């Protein structure tokens, strides 16, 4: 891989575009208005065209202002169309942004035929060209695109920090915002202005389709990983920056390895974002699909082990230390758990791995360690029976299943409470001793 200053500028531009889009996009995700980013990113086209017709320039302040104006106009029109047309959000956005986009295309066709706006650049952006146009700021020479994106990110940051509390309020509960005297409409359009500004600035780098990925996917990742707003925004921005760096490296290395030419950075960036999202979807703490599957499996393994220990503890009350054979496991207590061969086998295996149980001549016996653990399981079980009998007034015959269930979900804290409740007691409701 050959890394030049061009590559560094490309990554910086992509990271700035991604960071600003992720920051404002996070609020769209929270407001459940993600596709508004889609609508606005297309609807700004007439603004760009008109600014070009008036000033003859494809870049700079007038274009940003024109685009921001049309972005806000689009979000207002969506609101009006939804209301008076009695349509859902999606349909209203579909009507508004396609029409505005078409108007923009016609304007560009007619008035700006000679401008070099290639469909490719509109769709995918042209981050690779960013370093080629430079501006001088003081003694620094930096790519113009980077300068514009830095300013936009700065504006986004200032607004989000300044109105952090207000944006949280209005994206969570707009009705409360209104009754508290915070103008929800005003704040909504402030956010839409930011989205429009950011979209136009990022447009040049990542293109009109991929800018939507930058607006929405980082927020979706953060939604899986965080529980508060500040970390939510940080994770959004961080995943966009990470995707920019990994995306560019991937774009210039991965295809070469397979004998192709290097590929489009923006495309690689969005692909990386997608991969980050799916990784989060699988392994996010608590909410990840694999995480949840693993938690359930681990819980089931604990239950199986405790079931084996409980049966052995009861058996050793009768014939001390003699243990049980697999057949006796099945018959002695007619336990529904032991009746299922797989469950029993898994429980026995896990108990042996944990060193609770050892097998001698086809019989399973508790080890020293296992005896203590088994006593605890049985004690908790009988304490629960005591509880349901004394406090819940449950009849003797119904005690066992409830206690059998709860014994597996009793942590140290709950056990202490049970012990405290029945401090003077030494038998269960049937008169069996508490081990």
């Amino acid at each position, binding site marked *: 891989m050959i890394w030049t200053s061009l590559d560094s500028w490309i990554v910086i531009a992509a990271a700035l575009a991604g960071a600003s889009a992720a920051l404002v996009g996070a609020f769209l995700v929270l407001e459940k208005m993600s596709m508004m980013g889609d609508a606005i990113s297309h609807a700004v086209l007439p603004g760009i065209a008109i600014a070009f017709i008036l000033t003859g320039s494809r870049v700079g302040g007038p274009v940003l202002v024109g685009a921001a104006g049309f972005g806000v106009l689009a979000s207002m029109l969506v609101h009006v169309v939804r209301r008076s047309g009695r349509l859902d959000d999606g349909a209203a956005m579909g009507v508004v942004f396609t029409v505005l986009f078409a108007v923009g295309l016609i304007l560009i066709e007619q008035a700006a035929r000679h401008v070099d706006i290639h469909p490719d650049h509109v769709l995918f952006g042209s981050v690779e060209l960013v370093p080629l146009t430079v501006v001088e700021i003081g003694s620094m020479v930096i790519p113009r695109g980077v300068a514009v994106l830095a300013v936009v990110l700065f504006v986004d940051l200032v607004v989000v920090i300044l*109105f952090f509390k207000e944006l949280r309020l209005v994206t969570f509960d707009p009705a*409360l915002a209104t*009754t508290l005297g915070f103008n929800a409409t005003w704040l909504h359009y402030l956010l839409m202005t930011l989205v429009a500004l950011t979209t136009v600035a990022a447009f040049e780098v990542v293109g009109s389709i991929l800018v939507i990925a930058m607006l929405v996917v980082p927020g979706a990742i953060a939604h899986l990983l965080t529980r508060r707003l500040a970390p939510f925004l940080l994770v959004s921005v961080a995943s966009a920056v990470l995707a920019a760096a990994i995306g560019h490296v991937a774009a210039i290395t991965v295809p070469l390895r397979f004998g192709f030419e290097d590929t489009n950075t923006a495309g690689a960036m969005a692909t990386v974002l997608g991969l980050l999202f799916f990784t989060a979807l699988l392994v996010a703490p608590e909410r990840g699909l694999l995480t949840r599957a693993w938690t359930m499996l681990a819980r089931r393994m604990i239950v199986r082990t405790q079931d084996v220990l409980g049966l052995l503890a009861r058996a050793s009350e009768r014939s001390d230390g003699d243990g049980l054979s697999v057949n006796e496991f099945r018959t002695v207590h007619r336990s529904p758990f032991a009746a299922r061969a797989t469950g029993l086998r898994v429980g026995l295996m896990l108990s042996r791995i944990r060193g609770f149980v050892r097998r001698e001549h086809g019989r399973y016996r508790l080890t020293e360690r296992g005896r203590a653990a088994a006593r605890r399981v049985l004690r908790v079980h009988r304490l629960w029976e005591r509880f349901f009998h004394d406090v819940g007034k449950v009849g003797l015959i119904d005690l066992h299943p409830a206690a059998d269930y709860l014994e597996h979900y009793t942590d140290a804290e709950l056990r202490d409470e049970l012990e405290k409740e029945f401090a003077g007691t030494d038998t269960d409701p049937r008169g069996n001793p508490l081990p």
Partner: protein
Amino acid sequence: MQHDAPALHIRDLTVAYHRKPVLWDVDLDVPPSVVAGIVGPNGAGKSTLIKAVLDLVPRTSGVVEVFGRPYRRQRRLVGYVPQRETVDWDYPINALELVAMGLYRIIGWCRPVTAAYRTRALEALEEVGMAEFAHRQISRLSGGQQQRIFLARALVQDADVYFMDEPFAGVDAGTEKAIIAILQRLRERGKTVFVVHHDLETVREYFDYLVMLNMRVVAAGPARDVFTSENLKRTYGGRLTLLDRAVDAIGGSSS
């Protein structure tokens, strides 16, 4: 604040969605220091009444005054507890932060929620028995717990008039009792509370004032006076009674 003025005064309030009237000619005068129930069948406009008072839905016509002055100028005296399902409980925010939202007006634009405000929010959480859940994300609370923190958010506003939209919907018996206790404490402090309510069996027990609504105000007054089977029939047999009265009116005009 003029103390001789009613806590809530509504004159000629009409609300229509797409030209279909939802509320029709509502007149109300509710005195301060009462817990007022708003009851009526589904679609009677109970929530709409609250939202129209709070400027959350446009009014076709009518005047709303709180303690003798237009609502818009009395906003800081009014607290609102929306229906629980109107917000996204997956939002990345914890119970304490949600309650602190009630203080945003006092905190003001662009100023951060400082430790002093967080302490006030925590006190409100204590009042509803939720202090130990202050730092829990709101999706990890039960329905009853979510309703309690909504209530705490209203309490920190320290309003004089509260509007609560179905605070008892989907809550456990313990929460219902806790909410009622808080409503009664609010009344003892001279506050006025409006509660959209569904369970007619508890009306007498919970409310000392009652608004019976079915597009129009069928009856309003002290609960023991207006909670009669006659009024119930007129409220819940809505369309039927309207028809009866229309027949009466036609009969009356032709004779």
